[in-house]
């Protein structure tokens, strides 16, 4: 159970001990608070593997996963379009399965692994899906794109050769208001074709 302490922010810094560049970036991204004596807020130290890097981080219990990723760790590739499970922009993979990071608490990721859009490319080498999204001009404004990628990634991990209807079903939890749906489906299908 979380026991409240004040100045949780300082303790979070101490918990960060990841080895990757991601973790270092995270330290720099932690917001500097004012001098106020802030009221204590329940918080919990969790261990979570993010894009392959195991990290310890102290999170407020009320933080959503996407708050942890964006504000706590500076992984801003994951977007918030609605914060209510209505749009899909925040989709990440939790133990390989797509979930809305706005509708899950960060504490619930304890002991689990999260993959975000930042974890798709291996160094400079893009994931085939990313390349296909580029080639097919899938993103327009790009705000839904990280979410579309993660849903597509989860699909292809389990079903490398989906039909177009299977692609639509797997990605139906990702709204694209630019409505470039035709392109998104084509892009995913092209990757599955390449693997066939």
């Amino acid at each position: 159970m979380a026991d409240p302490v004040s100045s949780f922010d300082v303790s979070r810094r101490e918990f960060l001990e990841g080895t990757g560049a991601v973790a270092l970036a995270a330290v720099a991204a932690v917001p500097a608070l004012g001098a106020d004596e802030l009221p204590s807020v329940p918080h919990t130290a969790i261990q979570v593997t993010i894009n392959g890097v195991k990290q310890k981080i102290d999170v407020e219990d009320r933080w959503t996963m996407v708050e942890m990723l964006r504000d706590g760790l500076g992984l801003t590739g994951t977007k918030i379009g609605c914060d209510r499970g209505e749009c899909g922009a925040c989709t990440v993979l939790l133990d390989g399965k797509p979930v809305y990071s706005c509708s899950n608490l960060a504490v619930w990721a304890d002991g689990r692994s999260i993959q975000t859009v930042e974890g798709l490319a291996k160094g400079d080498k893009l994931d085939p899906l990313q390349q296909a999204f580029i080639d097919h001009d899938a993103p327009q404004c790009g705000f839904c794109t990280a979410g579309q990628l993660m849903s597509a990634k989860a699909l292809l991990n389990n079903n490398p050769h989906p039909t177009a209807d299977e692609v639509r079903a797997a990605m139906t939890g990702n709204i694209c208001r630019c409505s470039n749906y035709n392109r998104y489906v084509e892009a995913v299908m092209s990757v599955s074709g390449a693997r066939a």
Partner: protein
Amino acid sequence: MNTLKTVGISTTRIDTLQRVTGKAQYTNDVKLPGMLYAKILRSPHPHARIRSIDTSKALAMPGVKAVLTNENCKVIWGAGSIAGGVQYSDEIKKITKQHRYAFNNPVRFAGEPVAAVAAVNRHIAEEALLKIHVEYEPLPFVLDQEDAMKPDAPQIWPEGNLALSNRNEAVPMGQKRGNVQDAFAKSDQVFEDRFSTAFVHNAQMEPRSAVAHWEGDHLTLYTPTGGIANCRTDMARDLGIGQDKVRVISQYMGGNFGNKNQNQDADLIAAMLAKQTGAPVKLELSRKEDYIGMHGRWPTTQYYKVGVSKDGAIQGIQLRGYSGMGPYRKNSGAMAGVELYEVANVETSIHPVYTNKTVSGNFRGPEFPQGYFGMQSMTDEVCANLKMDPVDFVLKNMTRKPGGGAKYTDYSLEECVKRGASEFEWAKRWKKVPGSDPGAIKRGAGMSFMAFRSGLGRSDAVITVNAQGKYTVHVGVTDVGAGAKSTMWMIAAEELGVPLSQVDVMWGDTDHCPYSVGESGSRTTIMTGGAVVEAARDLKKQIAAKGMPAGTAMLTATVSANPRLPEGLVRSAFAAHYVEVEVDAELGRIKVLKYLAVHDCGRIINPLTAHGQIHGGVLMGIGMALHEDLIYDKRSGTALTAGYYGARVLTHRDAPKIDVIFIENDDGYGPYGAKSIGEAGKVPAVAAVGNAVANAIGHRMKDLPITRDKVIAVMA
């Protein structure tokens, strides 16, 4: 046409890589040291006088740094007041009577900002909102635009509910040509009908946010705006500071569709909070706030009277319309559609009306999709009554000349209509007898057409070249998603005659980019693209005269282009849309089976991105036709369906395949003959879907959206 090396060739966008790797920095991704978080308290009442606001408890909370209300922040948001369809300006500022402040008293719609808090984190800011005590005196309110015009309606402004123009005149918009009464008297048949369209929200994927940061008297504003130059001008004007004191940055933005050109109240509020606290402030709107706090498409009621002769020639059109503007006239409230027909006798009278609903403003073809729906539903119904084929009816009556003795720079509407009819196999899909499919599953087809402004106008561009032969194009675009950066990049490379790899683009920062009209009104490619062409030509001349620069020297071409069409010419983009639907009459379900959009957008600069623009517009149109509606509770005057779930925004599973045919012509104007494309896909789509439904079920659906309950009411 095929002498071009870059333009017209499918090209990967200059910035897609950033977008697929999560590296693109959108406004809410900006994080500055010591940054505070801001939240807005919004009125729960559609119309109320604020008797008092007590912010002391909020201010006393640890972590709260500032609270603004209309008592300590009197800044006027100019562009939110009555621009009435034109860009807000110094002139308008001088005469505007009906001001919209960042915080207003009385509040005039549920969702209007009442106070704003800056605190060390967003949770504390949110908690602080709950500690602000506001005493309201609720006032009578009116939601519907027609109700608001009744004599006993609650008055939202002392000047009445007919919205003022930017000259403070309360008169309906309209035109008069010939004599409609005579025309109706001479017509063989006269038809009258009423249509209505709902408030639909832009709902761009990125909810509004703004980061404001003062260094001395210098403001830096990160904000999603399609028009950084306009936004800067507006901010400077509202804050009463020089334009040189404002820098607007918008590197990436998550969609626009018309509600992000100019500054927004969120920008002003963030700037005022940052000033007050002496720290950078990030203001974030929730999706619901974005829906009710930012503008959407104006709802309309449209009354038509159309007279025709036996042979189907339209003799006269009369339109009386009402547009619900919300309590501020942020845009015109016009209705397009009547101009589509070559008719001698026309009389229109369109009333932009104040209501206590969320504010209306620009949304992808501001006055078009709803006006086209009404007008082309009306004519389709007339045509059905005459037992004519709609394609023949359109060919007979559609515009061939823009009127007033003018001519189109080029004309392809007939080609669009005919090509579409044949590729779509119209004759096979359209039901001669509407609703004639036996059984519950009924198919039918509908069509619509478009002639859409594609004017020229002012924009600036700067291109530099260094000794290494690297060209840098500076343009004030941000790329709302339509690919503007890439378009400018391609146009520059083409005109300079160099490969794309030698060209860079600087965008989205007023400190580094010259004026651009802003990405609204489908103007960027034409206007800013035109300026890029001019700048490239200028630079080539300089190189020819002086040679390439050496060492650290650079050559710079600065152009402020403002091309005009010769007198008597009108530039227009044309289209025809064809759609087949299947209606399940027992379950009320409507499914789009086939969709073909034929467009003349002039020359297509980048085929790779162009199709997506049409796809997106069409799908939004289908959503507007069948789903989207901001439904209000009549008694409380508050919105019930704000958000993607509530508005039933289309998902992957709802999106049919959209076929697109481009008819490419170079009319000799605009960069390489490019015409407007960003809005075009949506403009005729709503009408086409409505007509297809009518053909399938044999009932005209007159009120948008065409939801299940309405279908079942007439079918089951």
